[in-house]
């Protein structure tokens, strides 16, 4: 399965939407840098995340914290450390970056 990373905010870039279109069942999406804004509670993007049970969603905890979103992130997203980011790249067959 593929690990997709998204590093742009969905509010000013198409990469999150494009990634969702291509992401297959059982794959994972990791939100990094401004990509974490896709996980903000109560937005159309977090609604897409919450209604999708076929994909695993993660966000890099340092980037979420840096943007003050720790308490405001959709519960459908797992917060992970840099070390866990490395682990995800190992457990997935390849990594596709969207930017």
């Amino acid at each position: 399965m593929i690990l997709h990373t998204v590093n742009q905010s969905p509010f000013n870039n198409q990469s999150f939407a494009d990634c969702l279109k291509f992401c297959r069942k059982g794959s994972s999406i990791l939100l990094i840098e401004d990509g974490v804004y896709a996980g903000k509670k109560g937005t159309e993007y977090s609604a897409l995340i919450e209604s999708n049970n076929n994909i695993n969603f993660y966000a890099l905890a340092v980037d979420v914290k840096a943007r003050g979103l720790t308490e405001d992130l959709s519960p459908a997203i797992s917060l992970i450390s840099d070390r866990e980011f490395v682990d995800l790249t190992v457990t997935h067959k390849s990594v596709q970056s969207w930017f």
Partner: protein
Amino acid sequence: MRFSLMILGAPYSSQSVATALRFTQAAIDAGHSFHRVFFYHDGVNSGNALITPPQDENNIPQQWQSLADKHGIDLVVCIASALKRGVLDKKEAERYEQTNHNLNNGFTISGLGQLVDASIESDRLITFGP
């Protein structure tokens, strides 16, 4: 596992360089190794030896240099991207009759073949977009 990275973002403009540096450190701490870091597009600016940030701020070219020194990572800047952005080594400066060169120690200028090689020789090639 053996990793290679491709970095497209410029230091101090894009967060990608900082993310890639943290990823590299975390992977090394987890016992993984690195084959190559390939700097492409604006990423080649990480190889500029003249970057001089304030002393209390991160010196990104130096951080790459010391990681590469310590862990035997091959740092390659793309030749086409680098020359266009004014990042030259001694050989290229002579070839184009420029009076100065500024490629940081520990970096080499090479072609896209090194990116292809990185994808073949590594278990994972990870792109950090701008």
